[in-house]
Each structure stands twice: as C-alpha cells, then as structure tokens.
C-alpha cells in the first residue's frame, strides 16, 4: 500500500513506471521470503513442545527488526554501526557482480578478487612505516594497491573470454582457488612481518591500526556505540552512484551494456567487444577488491591469511545482492544493506529466542528464489500499468486509478508462493 502512495507522487516521467514496478516486484519477493520464514518458524513451534507458538511471532518480529531488535539503545546503535560497516564490502562485491552482468558476464570470481584486494591492501598498509609517510597517504596507497591487484585478477577471466572464448564461469572458479592459495602462500612466505603474533593470533594478519592506518571515522564509531563504523559505507555509496552515472549516462557505459545485450550487434556497430569484456571484468575485479581493502583498512579487522581451503562469503553474497537489485548500482546499496540487516536480525533471533540464526539465510534464499520471477512480475505490473499511459494522455493522469493494481498484483504474487 505504501508503494502505491509512492507511485502516485512519482509518476511524472514515463520511465518511472518501470522503476516503480521493479520496486513493487522486489517488495513482493521480500514479503514472500518473509512469509516462508514465518511459516517455518510456526511449523517449528507447532512440532516442538518446548517452543510456544507465540514465540514464532516474536521470532519473525525479531528477524524483521534487524539491529533494532537488539534491546537497549546502545546495543541498537552498536549493531547498526556494525551492520553499516559490514555492508560496505558487500555493496562493492554486489556492484562487481552487477556490472559484469550488465556486460553479459557472470562474475562468480568476486571471492578471488576480494582476497587479492585484501592482500594488496594489507601488504601496503603494514609495510610502509607511518612515521615516515603520513598514514592517510598509506591508506590511499593501500586502497589503490588492493584495487589494482583485484582489477588485474579480474582481467584474467575477461582475457580468457575475449582471447580464447573460454566460458568466464570456469575461469572465475579456477582463479578463486588460485587466489586463495596465492594469498596463503604470500603471507606464509612473508609471514613474520604481517602475522599477528603480538596478540597471539597466528592465523590472522596484524590489524592495520597497529601501523596507525585506519579508515577515517569522524567519530562515527563513538556515535554508534563503539562499533566498527567508519566512512566506508559513504565511500562505496559514492562509488555506486558514479557507476550508475557511468552505466546510464556515458558512451562507455552504453557500450558495455550493448556488448552484454548483443555481442554481435555491438561488434557490427563498431564497438570493440573484446576490449569491453576485459574492461568490464577489470572494473568488476577492482570493485570487489576495493571492498575487501576497505574492510581490512578499517583497522580493527582480523584477516585470516591461511585461507587456501575457504573463500570469503562476501564474495559469493555479491551475487544475491546484485540479483536482488536487478543489477542496478543504486539498488545494490539497498539490497546489500537489507541482506546484512536480515543477517543481524537472525543473530538477534538466535540470541533471544529458541530459534537459530540460520533462519536468516533461509529467508534470504527464498527471497532470491522469488526474485528470479521478479522480472516476470515486473513485466506483468508494467503491462497492467502501461496501457493507461498510452490510452490517455497526460491530462488524465490524476484520475488514474493506479491504486488497485499493486494490491491485485500482490495478491496474485502471494497466491503463487503458496504452491
């Protein structure tokens, strides 16, 4: 209903219609996921005598509340700050996946690029002595090194695709594991300078704060109850906006999208589709790596260096973030924050009720499942709304009874979920 109101205020341009439909479709997906999560909680409460049914209701409210279900104000601020901080790398990997999707590529290599970015940033941030070079310069150098390293790493699948026509998915998967081993190898070889012996955490790299390098907080960490909060979330939001402008308002962005939409047509139109593929993957790699660099440069994070058996979860979670946002860079911000929001809700759920935290990934997975049909839903909504736009001209706009449509669509959407 809320979206219907929003719609009435925002229908000044025709294009807004599709935009609204996208948002409505996404919200329907999210509601569907929550509904399924709710049903699971109820089922569990029904079958488990120890859990009263009412706890299912408390549970779903807790998950929905995210950090706000933490209890007292200080905890809420603390969790909120951490949530925003953790969202930043996820936004970056989400953008990374989104831009590759826009070019018709599937960047499942974000975990590898993420690791390379973390390695580059940590090596620089911890090796340049800050008593010689100002720490903010070291910070910038570290971020740049990580980004460049990730961009180069991302170029590998792009190069294989453009030069040898090898499916980018397979190269991404291989480079992920290669990166995991390379990072472990590098830190194993140079270990003594970087491993956190001081705090006897031998599996982790020293915090960059130990060298005086940390992302500026402007007191935000204090505001948010002593959390990890820094300005990275604002930095990545700016990146997302820039990416949005580049993709939608520049020739370069148009070329990237054209290459993704129809490779042959863009080639025919004189675009260098091979260059575009490599560039797109390089940008994607740089984005994911920058996200990792920002995470490490927070200054207080433990990076596990012996990572050859595991890949970072945020790398893979970029995929759902991008999908949930239909690859729209601005949408990725909200999608990523939402994913982290639900995750925080899940850990609160585990802490406060007899349910466990895995309800959150369950809900998110169902949301992603529904978002697969969100394009269908969106087209359906657009079709429902469009005719009015063409039938009557602009003077009739105020009388348009658009209110009913989203409600009807919502019902039909939920009807589908019951199957």
């Amino acid at each position: 209903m809320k979206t219907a109101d929003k719609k009435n205020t925002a229908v000044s341009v025709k294009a807004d219609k599709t935009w609204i439909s996208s948002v409505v479709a996404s919200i329907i997906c999210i509601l569907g996921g929550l509904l399924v999560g709710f049903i699971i909680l109820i089922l569990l409460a029904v079958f488990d005598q120890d859990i009263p049914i009412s706890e299912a209701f408390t549970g779903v409210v807790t998950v929905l509340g995210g950090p706000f279900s933490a209890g007292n104000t200080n905890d809420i601020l603390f969790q909120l700050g951490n949530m925003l901080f953790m969202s930043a790398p996820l936004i970056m990997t989400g953008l990374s996946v989104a831009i590759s999707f826009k070019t018709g590529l599937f960047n499942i290599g974000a975990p590898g690029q993420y690791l390379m970015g973390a390695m580059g940033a940590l090596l620089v941030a911890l090796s340049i002595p800050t008593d010689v070079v100002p720490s903010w310069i070291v910070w910038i150098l570290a971020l740049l090194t990580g980004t460049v390293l990730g961009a180069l790493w991302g170029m590998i699948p792009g190069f294989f695709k453009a030069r040898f026509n090898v499916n980018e998915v397979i190269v991404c998967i291989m480079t992920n594991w290669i990166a995991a081993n390379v990072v472990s190898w590098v830190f194993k070889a140079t270990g003594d300078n970087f491993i956190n012996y001081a705090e006897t955490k031998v599996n982790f790299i020293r915090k960059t704060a130990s060298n005086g390098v940390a992302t500026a907080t402007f007191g935000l960490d204090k505001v948010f109850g002593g959390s990890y909060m820094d300005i990275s979330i604002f930095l990545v939001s700016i990146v997302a906006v820039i990416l949005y402008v580049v993709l939608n308002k520049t020739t370069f962005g148009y070329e990237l999208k054209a290459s993704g939409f129809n490779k042959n047509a863009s080639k025919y139109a004189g675009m260098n589709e091979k260059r575009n593929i490599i560039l797109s993957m390089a940008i994607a790699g740089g984005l994911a790596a920058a996200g990792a660099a920002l995470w490490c440069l927070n200054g207080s994070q433990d990076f596990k260096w012996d990572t050859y058996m595991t890949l970072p979860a945020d790398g893979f979670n970029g995929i759902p973030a991008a999908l949930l946002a239909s690859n729209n860079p601005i949408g990725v911000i909200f999608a990523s924050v939402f994913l982290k929001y639900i995750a925080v809700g899940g850990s609160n759920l585990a802490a406060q009720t007899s349910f466990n935290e895995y309800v959150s990934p369950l809900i998110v997975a169902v949301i992603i499942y529904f978002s697969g049909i969100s394009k269908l839903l969106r087209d359906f909504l657009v079709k429902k709304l469009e005719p009015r736009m063409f039938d009557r001209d602009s003077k009739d706009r105020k009388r348009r009874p658009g209110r009913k449509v989203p409600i009807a669509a919502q019902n039909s959407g939920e009807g589908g979920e019951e199957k």
Partner: protein
Amino acid sequence: MIFLLQKTLIFTIPLLIVALAGVFAERSGIINIALDGIMIFGAFVGALGALLLRGNPFFVDHNQLTFILAMLIAAAAGGLFSLLLSFSAIKLKADQTIGGTALNMLAPAIALFIIKVFFSKDMLEMQMAPDSTGKMTDFGFVILNDDLGPVGSVFFDKAYISTFICVALFVVLSILIYKTKTGHHLRACGEHPHAAASVGINVNRMRYLGTTVSGCLAGLGGYVYIATVANGTASGAVAGMGFLALAIMIFGNWKPLGIALGSLLFGFLKCLGVIYSQISIPINGQDVYFLRDLDLPMYFYNLIPYVAVLVVLAFTSKRSRAPKAEGIPYDKSARESR
C-alpha cells in the same frame, strides 16, 4: 603410487558424477548452477538417512546396504530439491542463474537450520552405533582391506562400493543420453527446442526430466563426497565441489568422455597436492621422496590443478561449444532468435 591412484579414484568419483549431472540439465536446456547446492542438500539428507537407519542394529550389521540406501535417499532428495529449479525455470520461466543461486543458498540454510534444531550442532557426524551384538561399530564403508597386487589394489583395496555404482551409472547414463531416443530428444531440447517441438517432442517434459536426473545425480554425488572424501561429516558445504564439477563439465565440453578425462586429470592433480609429501619412488633400494625434497610450499601443489585446467582450456577452447538453447526459457509462441 598405489595410494595416490586410490585417492585419485575416490576424489574423482563425486566430480565425475556431479559433472554428468550438469550435462543432463544443460543438454536439456537448463543451466544448472545449483549443482553445489543440490550436492549439499543430497549430502545432508543422505547423512540424515544413514544416521536414522543406523538406529536399527540390522543396518549397523549391514553397512554396505545402509550405504546404498543412503545413496538412494540422497539421490531422491537431490531430485526433489532440483524440482524447485525446474519449476521456476520451466513453469515460471524465471532466470535460471537466479534460481540456481537461490538453491545454492537455500541448501546450506536448510541443512544447517535442521541440524541446529535437531542436533544442536553445526555439522552432522556419523557416530558409532551398536550392532546386533551390542558392539559399537563405526560407519566404515570400505569393502576389502587387502593387498591385491598393483592393479587390484588401486581398484579394490580400501575401495568404496559407491565407486563401482557411480562408474556403472556414468557408463549407463552416457550411453542413454547418446544412444536412446529419449537421450536424443533431451539433447534436441537443449539445441533447438522449437525444432524439437515441431516434431512432437514435449520440450517442457524433457527439460523436467533432464533437470531431475541432474538433481538425482548431484544429490548422489554430494552424499558420495561426504561419505568417502569428507569422513561422513555433513555440514553446510561440500568445499566448492559443485562449482568444480561445473567447471569440469565446461572443461569436458558438455560431453561424458571429456568429463571423464577432465575429472580424472583434475582429481589426480588435486590428490597430488594433498599427499605429495608421501609419494616416493624406489631408487637403488631406497625410497626417495622427490616431491617432498623439492621443498616447495604445499600451496604450490594446491595451485597446480587449477592452473592446469586454465592452460588446457586456453589451448582447447576453440572447439568448446555450449548447448545452444541453454538458459533460454522455452516459449512456444516465441520465434527462435538464433
């Protein structure tokens, strides 16, 4: 050396069967990026089944029977789970990559959720259970444990019954998809669904069939993986094996023979990386551990299989060809665009 080959065989089998699972889905026109998720789900349900079966001493006495039953349970679970993918991809014409990603997230979530609820743990381990005489018995599946000479040892010593079942399945299904009418129909749906429909093939049914077979195989592969490679521990992950199998499938050019070669090569190199320090060749009556003596870090050996795949791909990619219609929802009324 025999040890290395034994390990290779054990490691290769899940890759082989899951890569074949990918072939069945993609040859029918559905991109199955959910192989990893289906493996996790199959592994979890299979392990759960085995655990429950072993509550009965009869099944503890007959470990091999339990193993086979658990494999069947895992396959059925994988098949059912894959219906989520085929339903969204075929009936709802949803984006198959998104559907697959959702399944990849759903499987560990379900598995961990249930394990946590019922066992208050983060992983499901095979425990000792009393057999009919009351003796506590562990969950060992090894058939024989004998020295049978060089060739026999590779295939039979410390072998699992799953190895033979999977190889047999692989051969039978490979023949099925190439030599039978249903197999031809299935592959036609992945290349030219409209042409297939025009001669009376039910494209949607073929795609359901392909994806379900794919799900069964992936679920089976997942359980075989945890039972043989991962010490019977089901958690919310299979160490990225599903994605590796996906890569092997592309590597093998969507063909069974290519897959067999690819997974053997990959499995061999991967095992080499794990046990390189134990490999010796006798020189002048002395065992020389030549790989260990090179003194390279283990990361180097871990890298080899992945780099090798990339190198091989760079040289062989020219003839690489994905099924033409994969990933495109079949719409009866639409014109074929390519």
